[in-house]
């Protein structure tokens, strides 16, 4: 029997909103797909594009980046700064031929436990449909004699 592909997802979330939101999902006993590994950072402003690249390098099929809604940043403007960088990074990813459908940027607040579950479920389904990110894995190990 062919083994069904289960995507590996990495989520970089801010401590104050999305992480708390995901916590709420749990304490509210809302079930969602278990493909995601959550990595907590202080603020979305801390999420360097290299974190996303590292996730893909290490075999992630999809990445979620999420933090406080605009105007809600614990540090006032970290998410605004992050947004600008995402705008350029996503553009560049596309230009370099990376599959931008595999990165999801989102705002999830501490109160949005349901929304977090929905987001993860949607992204998991979407990446499952896309299949493994084999294209990026072509890079790993190539060019070493």
């Amino acid at each position, binding site marked *: 029997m062919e083994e069904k592909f289960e995507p590996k997802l990495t989520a970089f979330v801010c401590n104050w909103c999305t992480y708390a939101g995901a916590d709420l999902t749990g304490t509210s006993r809302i079930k969602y797909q278990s493909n995601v590994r959550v990595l907590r950072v202080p603020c979305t402003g801390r999420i360097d594009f290299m974190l996303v690249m590292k996730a893909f390098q290490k075999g992630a099929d999809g990445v979620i980046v999420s933090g406080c809604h605009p105007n809600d940043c614990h540090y006032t403007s970290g998410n605004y*700064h992050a947004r600008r960088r995402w705008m*350029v*990074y996503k553009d560049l990813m596309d*230009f*370099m*031929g990376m599959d931008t459908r595999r990165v999801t940027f989102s705002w999830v607040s501490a109160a949005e436990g349901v929304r977090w579950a929905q987001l993860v479920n949607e992204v998991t389904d979407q990446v499952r449909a896309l299949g493994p990110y084999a294209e990026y894995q072509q890079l790993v*190990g190539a*060019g070493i004699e």
Partner: protein
Amino acid sequence: MEALKQKAKDLLERGEVKAIVGYTKGTGDIRRPYFAQRPEQVDGLVLDEACTQNLATYATKHEVRHLGKLGVVALPVTQRALLQLMAERQIRDGDVIVLVAEEGNVEKGNVKELASAAALEEHLALKTDVMDEKDQELLAKLNAKSREERWAFWHRELSRCVKCYACRNSCPMCYCDHCTMDCNRPQWVPVASHDLGNFEYHVVRAMHLAGRCVECGECGRACPVGIPVHLLTFFAEESVHRQFGQRAGHSAKLDYALSTFRPDDKESFIR
């Protein structure tokens, strides 16, 4: 040409600058960077169509800075880079005296001396074209391809990279003493020039130049194996321009696009 030499000579003789950074005749038809430190050395200066290198790179090179105050024979790309270096507080307004050929042609026009950022900004305001047509075409061609074709293109091209860092070292905006590529705690990008190390390096380079690239194309010219790496930073810079409405290299008071924001920055992809 005589006007430029005279101007350079005057500056050196009056002691206003310690060295003139310009061009001289190199191998075959090539022009190479040239440093005139004594008045009689200005005779080696050349300025013509074959001069392409962005000399602003030397404004932050320790060994050159060490010479003292510089006069820089500046093409438009060099002018933009010097302004951007001022915006990034790498050189101070007045640190360098900029020599430009009026009307861009040293044989026709006069040679102007621009000693301040304001003068440089005013001079540059006359020029609106940034990227040359060939590069515009190349970018358009790549953008017209499918995502998969672009992946194939960059994968193939970047796998040829040998990580000699000619692109980085030739770039006037890559002045960091401790480039992230040289830091190993943590080691963000593999040092080895295998496919992954190359791809990640060029992502980092492009991202770090987004909003700072003056689109001189020096990196692409410098690449010994002929990878059009300049298209990556051009694209990133154009992305900033398109989305945030600002361009690097036109003002000494530009805020770095990616360290600032507007609450109403418009995007369409954040869920």
